[in-house]
């Protein structure tokens, strides 16, 4: 039997060392890391799908919002517009013989909207003018509700009418206005 050379023993020792190292390394570090990789990957896939759902719903909601905004553009603008008596008078003066708007008084919030109480007095030639006015007010730049008490007083050929109007607009609350502006 040939003598086992020293080199063979060294090779054997090195091999054993390295082999043990490989085993230890594999089992202590590599395999757990691999497991975690698998776990994380599946988790991440689920998360991505979830995110996709969220994004879809966001897009949907956005569409809805945009549609609403488009459809109700006039109303939204009307609520946003500040009521200026001069402008009101200017706009509807033509219909009336004379128009006078007085007393802009801020009332309490009604249904979350701020309300101005406006007293109007005007002179009209016939009730038909008033009817027309009521039709037109729905298309005005503001959201105005004509309110009681309404008075018609005949004065010769003309009617002196006076009525109250409630002008609705967005609440001047900071929170609300921020949201609206967005």
């Amino acid at each position, binding site marked *: 039997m040939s003598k086992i*050379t*020293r080199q063979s023993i060294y090779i054997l020792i090195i091999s054993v060392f390295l082999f043990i190292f490989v085993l230890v390394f594999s089992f202590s570090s590599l395999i757990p890391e691999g497991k975690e990789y698998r776990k994380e990957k599946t988790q991440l896939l689920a998360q991505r799908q979830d995110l996709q759902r969220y994004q879809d719903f966001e897009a949907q909601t956005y569409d809805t919002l945009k549609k609403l905004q488009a459809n109700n553009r006039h109303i939204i603008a009307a609520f946003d517009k500040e009521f200026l008596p001069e402008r009101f008078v200017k706009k509807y003066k033509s219909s009336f013989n004379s128009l006078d708007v007085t007393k802009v008084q801020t009332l309490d919030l009604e249904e979350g909207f701020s309300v101005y109480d406006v007293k109007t007095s005007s002179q009209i030639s016939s009730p038909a003018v008033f009817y027309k006015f009521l039709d037109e007010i729905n298309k005005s730049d503001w959201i105005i509700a004509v309110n009681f008490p309404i008075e018609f007083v005949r004065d010769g050929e003309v009617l002196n009418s006076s009525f109250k109007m409630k002008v609705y607009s967005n609440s001047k609350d900071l929170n609300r206005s921020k949201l609206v502006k967005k």
Partner: protein
Amino acid sequence: MFNNLKKFLYTQIYINIIANAQKTVIYVEELHSNGSSDNFEEVFNSTQRVEIYECIQAFAKKSPIHYISILDNSPSCGAIPTCSKEDKKLYYNSSDFENICTPEGWTYYTSKRDLLELQGHYHKVGLDFIFSPFIILSNFFIDKISNDIAMYILINEDNLVLSVFEDSKLFFAVNLDMENKDLDSNDELLMDIDDDEELDLEESVDINLENVDVDDDVELIDEFDDMEDLDTFDDMDEFSQDAIEEDSVSEKSSKDDFEDQNGFGVDYHRFSLIQSAINNFYQDTKYDSKFIETVYIADSVGISNELKKFLEEEMFLSVYVRKMNLGHELCELSKAELR
């Protein structure tokens, strides 16, 4: 620190090759990290290249820290007593030779071509060290070369390496190649001698008996008492009947006889070479010649007593022989190289 780690982890293996014409010796020393060491020696026929290679490989495989050293046996190797470039030119052409200058001021060299040939011959296993026999010789007799002038000879299978030192300074060095191994070489040498010289020899043989002093030394007479213990003519190898007769009784005895005869021949051949080298040393103006009285021989092959006798009787030299294991010396030199 790295070296210590290497030594701790691995065994250091020194493989030393002495390659002669006929046989190749592989001497291996294993140095373990705990300090212990093992030696191995293998002798191969120089033609058995595969076996030699396998043997070296077997040892080399034992450890990555192995050093293979070889003795430079090429005929072109030599040494000169100078280190300066100008002086070197007197002896050889510097560009063709690889040389190393020692701290003592002498240089040993060998042919670059021979080095490459050697490395090529062993390219399969590779070589780490190639040592000159001159440095081996000087290291072997390190304790003696610092003394008075003496000649140092390393006797190898195929060659003789000879150097003359005084006070650690080299005076003369030569590599003597024993090309012809047969007995005829002796005759060749004899034939080289001039007629005049031959005449001189005859003259020197005459002894004037009148000049001979007789020493009536009691001690000498006592020596003769031991004559009974002396070998008879028959017992002496040189005068053995078997040795003289070329026709042998049995093959085995003849083989032994032949070897004995050869041993004698070889030693004589060696002696002739040494003699002519010394003559060259005395006569050549290149070398500072001084009269040599002592010879130290490093015997790596196992010489007979004859060479010593020849040198003592013919050249009147004091001869000291030290047994040397060339492989071991190569090994020690390798270790010294790595320190």
